[in-house]
């Protein structure tokens, strides 16, 4: 299974917020799975999750997303900064998880609503956030602005360096 999930690309510091890194797993058939990168702040320092909600505004819940047919009609079309869900931790910190790519929302992970610990324990498999189908023409270009695994690791290591610099 893993061989078909090729590039794990990352969007670091989503919306300028340090270390709110998202990881996108793209299958060879262009389908993308949005997950938290293991460096995401939520996953650090032993945080526990109080609440996850897909109700991102008064009028919009990602849970209402209904697709039908082969062409996945009806799926909400997302842009890069479209919010997917909001996570509240027991220490009252709040995090918004974003789409990171343009495409049609196919499904959001309802398992993490029932079992939030999945998100903490298996962020890159069973704790995934959402599945998005990019447009056929855009399937290769959507990942252009994102970091490859190597680039991302470099960014992360530079972060640690900066953080350990005496202020």
């Amino acid at each position, binding site marked *: *299974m*893993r061989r*078909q999930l090729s590039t794990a690309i990352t969007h670091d510091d989503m919306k300028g917020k340090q270390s709110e890194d998202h990881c996108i797993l793209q*299958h060879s*058939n*262009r*389908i993308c*799975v949005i997950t938290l990168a293991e460096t995401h702040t939520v996953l650090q320092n032993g945080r526990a999750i109080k609440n996850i909600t897909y109700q991102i505004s008064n009028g919009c819940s990602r849970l209402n997303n209904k*697709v*039908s*047919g*082969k062409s*996945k009609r009806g799926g909400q079309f997302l842009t890069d900064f479209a919010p997917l869900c909001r996570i509240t931790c027991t220490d009252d910190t709040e995090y918004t998880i974003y789409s990171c790519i343009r495409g049609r929302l*196919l*499904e959001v*992970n309802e*398992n993490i609503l029932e079992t939030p610990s*999945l998100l903490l324990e298996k962020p890159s*498999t*069973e704790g*995934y956030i959402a*599945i998005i*189908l990019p447009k056929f023409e855009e399937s290769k270009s959507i990942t252009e602005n994102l970091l490859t695994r190597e680039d991302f690791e470099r960014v992360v290591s530079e972060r640690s360096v900066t953080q350990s610099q005496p202020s």
Partner: protein
Amino acid sequence: MLPLKEKDTPIVRKLLTAGCCARCILRFCCVSVPASYRQSQKDTLEELQTFLRDTGNNQDSAGPESTDKDNKSHDAAESEASEDPPNKKAKLELSVTDAAAGPCVCVLCLGILQDLCDVSQAVRIADAVKKGNYEFDTLVLSVSLPAQLCVRERSCWLHVKNEFREKSTVLSRDDVIQVKEAFKWIMQGLIAKELGGIAVVAKSAFEVSVEFTHPETDSNCHFLASTCPDCFKPTKNKQVAFTRMAVVKALDKISDAKFLKHFSCPPSRPSTSCTSRDVQCLHVSVFVAGRYNKFCRSLPQTPWVIDGERKMESSVEELIAAPVLSGFRASGFNFSSSGREDVDVRTLGNGRPFAMELVNPHRSHLSGEEMKQLQQTINESSDKIKVRDLQIVSREAMSRMKEGEEDKTKSYTALVWTQKPIQKDDIAFIDNIKDLTLDQKTPLRVLHRRALAVRQRVIHSMTTRFLDPHHFYLGLKTQAGTYIKEFVHGDFGRTKPNMCELLKTDTDILELDVESVDVDWPPAIPE
């Protein structure tokens, strides 16, 4: 002797004047004796003229209008030496002279029942058949005529009907012999003769098609598009198509009065004859079935092409089709099977049932011995696949094969990897699980081309065989349509329950084999 009656006289006269050929006149007189049409055109015309002379003497002049017309228009024509009333005769002679002097193309059949149904045409058709080198016992002749023939037919019908409404002729439109039928009466025997006595029948597995076109009068149909627009809806990619079916439908709808407003009665005289296009030969499809094994983990079932580029060499269907196509000398094939396996999955055991439709086979009867030989050829051509029970089946049998896709069970063996180390005892409980129901969301790997849905599938039973602390073999017997790979690795938790949950560890599937496809079709052929 033509089977004509006195009541036919006015019809014969009117149609002859209008420019119809002898055979079309016979058609309108409802002559249903095939032999009458097989006479030469010249003889038929002469007999018609004799008929008119004989009956003309018994009749008064046709009517005031026609006599006037006769007087005005026959100036140029010199009547031949004859004792008959000059008016009518002269007009008839006019038509005859035209026919003799130069090609006078029939306004009804546009030449199809004139020079296009003679021995040379039969020779032409027979040559095309011989060239095709088909194996056949009988043939059926099919003829395609330009749609405007229907329009012209209607016009002549009205021409004839109008004048004799009062004279209760027993004629009804359905009694008029169709051009197609007359053509076949003439041609079938001629073609049979050229092919050394082959029976030309009404229904056969081998079809010889002749098509006539007449661009000069294609516009005859166009008025129907404005009078009956709903018969001629233009489809997405094409312009309005004046197909025969659409034209017939429109003519059924249009009233006589409206028709006469838009189309001349009698129809205009064409200057050219129809052209006949290349003769097409088609043999009905032959269906070949069997079961195939796949021993290779890098062979797709169908050709794998992306953007015109071949991604993987060959395919199951191509390896099977190549020798079969040449054995039956077919031009193409349609391959289908009772389910499919992935590129990296082997098919073992008795194999998977498949059936191929062979399109336009030039050979259709192969003996049991020849089929065995063909099977051997396939098996020797590659070690990636093997075929058994190869046989010719009927078209209906195809549905038996597709049955297997939905209802029947399948058995598999998977090589499973576990992240945490395991012992034999850790997996023993799996053997006791019976009829485990799974909820499988559409796997990510096919989600781009299939609808998002949840499918319930049953795993009837499983067996395990320990290999080492991180590997074991898993045997499964499942309902058709179960995604095995997703059951093993969980597909992001979208298949539940799954092996990861059962063993409480990350698992993945390294290899998969199909052990059996439990469909008892096609019938086994003993080796």
